[in-house]
């Protein structure tokens, strides 16, 4: 992230998976920074799966959800499956009420579920995840 101030997003590596936790609401610039950072790191760590944890967010605007969708698409192009986890009930409902398009990004309840979807910590994305990813293409 930025060189100054505390990190707003932590990107951790676990095996072939990246876990990105967003700690606080990000503005548009920060969101773009996060996107660049993550897409960059996917190649660096040869990641096969990405979990983006948004549990700390109590609001997700249209730019935010579009960026998340873009990240998932870019990650796919870089060879990694993406799953977004921890969307709060209120956030989920607001997103659909406002008609935000989240595309075909996979979602899961929490980090544990997200990792299970990707095929367990450290492992390869499960066949199911890859099959679904391929199906979407």
């Amino acid at each position, binding site marked *: 992230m930025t060189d100054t101030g505390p990190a707003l997003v932590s990107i951790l590596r676990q095996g072939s998976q990246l876990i990105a936790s967003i700690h606080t609401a990000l503005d548009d610039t920060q969101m773009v920074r996060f996107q660049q950072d993550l897409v960059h790191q996917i190649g660096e760590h040869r990641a096969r799966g990405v979990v983006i944890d948004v549990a700390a967010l109590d609001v997700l605007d249209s730019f935010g959800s579009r960026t998340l969708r873009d990240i998932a698409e870019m990650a796919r192009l870089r060879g990694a499956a993406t799953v977004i986890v921890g*969307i709060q*009930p209120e956030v989920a409902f607001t997103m*659909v009420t406002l008609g935000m398009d989240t595309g075909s990004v996979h*979602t*899961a*309840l929490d980090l544990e*579920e997200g990792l299970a979807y990707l095929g367990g910590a450290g492992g390869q994305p499960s066949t199911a995840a890859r099959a679904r990813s391929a199906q979407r293409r």
Partner: protein
Amino acid sequence: MNESDTGAVEFAALDREDEEQLLPQLVAHLREHRSRLRQEWSGRIQDSHLLSSMTPQEVGAETTSVYDNYVEVLETGSVEALQHYARDLSERIIPRGVETHEVVGIVLLLRDVLARSLFEKYQDDFDLLNRVLDAYEPAANRIANTVAVSFVDERERVIRQQQDSIRELSTPVLPVRERLLILPIIGVLDTERARQLTEQLLRGIRTHRAKVVVIDITGAPDVDEAVANHLVRTVDASRLMGASVIITGLSPEIAQTLVTIGVDLSKMNTIGDLQGGLEEAERLLGFTVTRADGSP
């Protein structure tokens, strides 16, 4: 007397003087002829077929209290006691099925009966009659108004209370198996209920860590466009939280409605009945159900 009098200062002064003399006279008259006027009133109530859901004894008892309260308000000029009584009366008669027009009707009849008796009493002195009516009418209107408002208030309170309890009962989110929720919808789904249902479902998904939700709408008689769209959004929102939704029990009518109004149903996973929905949900979750004796 009341706020509207403050506008016309001169008249108000006159009125007050008149009232001070006339109202006690009026009250004395109504007390004196209490049983005759009350009977006349009861007769009029019967003729108009009001309060038909109550027995004659009940009508007798209530009309006596209403009459006494009425006269008391004329005497004291304070509607507080009447308000109290009207609320209490409403509480008693609403469950009996007494309608608003009946309550308003009987009070207006009483107003009429008493006014007529005043006509008779003062018919020789037209000027005095006029002034008596001037004193009587605002008070009588106020009484009619008070009773009607109290009744409607009480009725609304009952309706609100019932609505609340229906709402509380109407959208149960039930855990069936590990990570499987079932949400039976029974009764008419209006927009408010649909909103509440979504809220409870999303919260339920979080609490029970649900992966699959079966929404069964067998018990919903009708679904309009707004509610259908709401259902679609609920499915989307559940998906965002990582749960997949299976909708079961779409009636032929609802299926026709949904297709006719053109709701986007492409993301809806529907299965004919609840049994099928549960089987599919179990399959998604990796459960297999076998009979204990091993037979298929």
